[in-house]
């Protein structure tokens, strides 16, 4: 049954989603530690597991942060492009955890480290 009240807003929502699109972040956790630090992509806490986690993410730049005891510590920025995958390796053995980009951009230093896909 055609329901304009539902169909129209849904179509609009889909259209707005498609304009920017989505991409992917592949998060690799270096094994060797029993306790993984809590990781955040922007405000969302990640259910990161040992090994590889693949996350669907809206196109744009997201901050990857870790729980640093006193608050969140910025590990790196992750640039997500439409239908592309950005690979980031996190080494939790280091304090604070270190972000290694498969394809880095920008200069070194936590504040400016950026991974691109």
């Amino acid at each position, binding site marked *: 049954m055609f*329901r304009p009240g539902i169909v129209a807003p849904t179509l609009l929502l889909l259209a707005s989603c498609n304009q920017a699109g989505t991409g*992917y972040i592949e998060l690799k956790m270096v094994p060797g530690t029993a306790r993984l630090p809590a990781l955040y992509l922007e405000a969302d806490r990640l*259910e990161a597991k040992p090994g*590889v*986690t693949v996350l*669907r993410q809206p196109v744009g730049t997201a901050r990857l942060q870790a729980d640093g005891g006193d608050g969140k510590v910025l590990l790196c920025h992750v640039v997500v492009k439409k*239908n592309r*995958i950005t690979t980031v390796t996190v080494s939790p053995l280091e304090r604070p955890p270190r972000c290694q980009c498969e394809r880095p951009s920008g200069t070194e230093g936590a504040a400016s480290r950026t991974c691109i896909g």
Partner: protein
Amino acid sequence: MRSRITRGALQITAAVFSLALLAAAPAARAQPQTSPDVQFSQQLDELKKSFTDVGRQIDESAKSIDTIKTPEEGRKSIEELRGQVAKLLAAVADNGEISRLGARALALAEEKLKALERENRFKPEEKQYLVNRWRELRTATEAAIRDLDGARKDFAELLRSLQTSEDYIDELMQIREHEKALQVIHQLSDGIREASVKLKKLLGSIKPPGS
């Protein structure tokens, strides 16, 4: 006059809003309360259907890549392929609906088994029957989750391989190595066919729990 128009506009807005609510209400009522394991099975069934369609498109892309004559055409083809592979990856991403449902379905099976251990209402044979059925469901759910994990790894690898090839072609075109770029494009079709075979295997192996 102006107030009459405003009142009319308000009435129309209210009518449209009421219609929208009326249209939404039966849909909301019709939604049965299904448990995560049933939802997980339903979503896996849907996934198999959509993967079959995407698999067909990937096969067609592999065929068309062999006949490509210019690097520009090749780049466009790879971009389209990335879109198709991205659809597959979206369905199995760790933060996607199916992965979440899989985890919830597994947690439910674990909870039910623990609860049945403490259960005293049923006869031993009845209790054993329920325990066996939940164990079967747990095993089937774990197997489906493993298949999804494998698929996620394969699709992520394929997407990375496509984007790296696209970047390499782009670099080659910047130094006007058009022939070399065409070679890279044609070599890609083997990788795509391999991915298509893996996808077909996955479609054959994924079994929605309880089916």
